[in-house]
């Protein structure tokens, strides 16, 4: 019990000034450097019942991503490809500002940004998910469940989604469609989100920073150094130079994050 509704909603003007002042001195509320992300830990296989899963702690932000895979009908325009679908729930237990009910615009944006990175980065080889062309394909459901909201859900969810895909098993035998096999993951797109605070840009904003940021930019890059997705948010703007800088920072940070995602962090069974 260190936090509750007091810090939600209205942001004290004081907070804004303080964080700006810190930035002008080259530091942040929690003492991080501008290009430093919070401590990232990923527990893969956290939900054995799901086909793939990962519990992500990014600082105090905690997100659980589960992957379920079921047979379904392909879209008419892509008869030879499996289907990928991403959904996000901002469970009210994660923050005093989250309300129960159907996904709001924040949850929908979150799901779409994560989806775009995975999809455009061709993380999953969807052509290998065809059971019968035009008739039956595997449908991969990525479900993002936010458990504790301390800022920057995009990245926590993106890391969780990728990590959950990498340990997902296609449950073919359950449907009498042959042997189970590992979900074919071929690329590793990693998002990194930046917040603009005054004229400064910081990576992986925490809640305090996020709540006073004027603009936000998420850049998803692949292991080949390609950019797969970008999403700018909030009412402020970035200059072209800032965007270039952000992309470069995203690649550098993304490379380190990718190592963590691909690292051996499977949950220990006891």
């Amino acid at each position, binding site marked *: *019990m*260190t*936090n*509750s*509704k*007091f*810090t939600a*909603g*209205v*942001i*004290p*003007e*004081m*907070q804004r*000034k*303080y964080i700006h*002042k*810190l930035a002008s*001195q*080259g*530091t942040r*509320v*929690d*003492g*991080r*450097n501008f290009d430093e992300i919070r401590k990232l830990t990923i527990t893969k296989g956290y939900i054995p019942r799901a086909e793939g899963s990962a519990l992500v702690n990014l600082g105090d932000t905690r997100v659980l991503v589960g992957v379920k895979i079921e047979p379904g009908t392909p879209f008419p325009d892509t008869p030879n490809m499996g289907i990928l679908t991403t959904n996000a729930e901002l469970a009210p237990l994660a923050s005093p500002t989250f309300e129960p009910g159907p996904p709001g615009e924040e949850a929908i944006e979150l799901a779409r940004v994560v989806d775009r990175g995975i999809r455009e980065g061709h993380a999953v080889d969807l052509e290998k998910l065809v059971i019968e062309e035009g008739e039956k394909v595997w449908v991969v459901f990525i479900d993002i469940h936010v458990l504790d909201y301390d800022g920057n859900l995009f990245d926590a969810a993106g890391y969780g989604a990728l990590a959950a895909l990498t340990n997902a098993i296609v449950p073919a035998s359950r449907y009498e469609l042959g042997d189970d096999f590992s979900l074919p993951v071929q690329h590793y797109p990693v998002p990194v989100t930046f917040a603009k605070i005054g004229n400064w840009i910081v990576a992986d904003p925490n809640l305090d920073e996020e709540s006073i940021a004027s603009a936000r930019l998420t850049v998803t890059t692949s292991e080949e150094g390609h950019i797969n997705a970008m999403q700018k948010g909030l009412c402020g703007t970035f200059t072209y130079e800032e965007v270039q800088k952000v992309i470069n920072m995203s690649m550098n940070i993304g490379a380190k994050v990718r190592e963590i995602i691909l690292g051996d962090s499977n949950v220990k069974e006891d």
Partner: protein
Amino acid sequence: MEGKIAIRKIVVPGEEIDEKGKPGNGVFVENGKLYSAYLGIVDTRAGYVNVIPLSGCYIPKKGDKVIGKIIDLAPMNWVVDINAPYYAPLHVNDVPWRVEFGDTGRYLSIGDVILAKVSNVNELGQVWITLKEQGLRKLEGGHIIKISPFKVPRVIGKGGSMIQMLKDYTGCRIYVGQNGIIWISGPPEGIITVIKAIRMIENEAHTYGLTDRVKEFLEENRGESNGNEE
């Protein structure tokens, strides 16, 4: 004195308290027996058995100094979030300025942070606060954090010793509201150190030798230029 709390018994809701005395705060009686209503520690004094909760929301008491945030304006009052179950109205008669009807926004606007005093509480939980006293004011500059209201005494320390130590080592101004909101102002590296020290106090509030460990921590962080010691 240190760790006095640690040797006291922790009780859970519904747990029988086998101490003699009249029922005080945080306890209830059933069939002549005393039970705890809270997750807390037993505190027997002056013939009363009390349970002091280890967590929970702030319950305002008359005379408490609290730090609050303006969340809404009305023609004759402001609405203040003081981290309690209920919002507290601050009436224009309870501020040191002469405010014309409908002109509240000129003096305090949404998002402003104030140091106020609880002037009255009724049995329905309704609260009134005032700014009409020496030292009460709008707080400007600095940073606020929140802790459990039950750990406020620990952060202040005996006779204000802990808070004084934090101030001395970091050069920060610190005000601890009884409602668990803490205002810290000073050099950023000092503020970062104070926050880390307060989190440490909060997490280890029930341990022995806490003052010494906090002191050690402050020694290590004294004069850190960027406050980034990880």
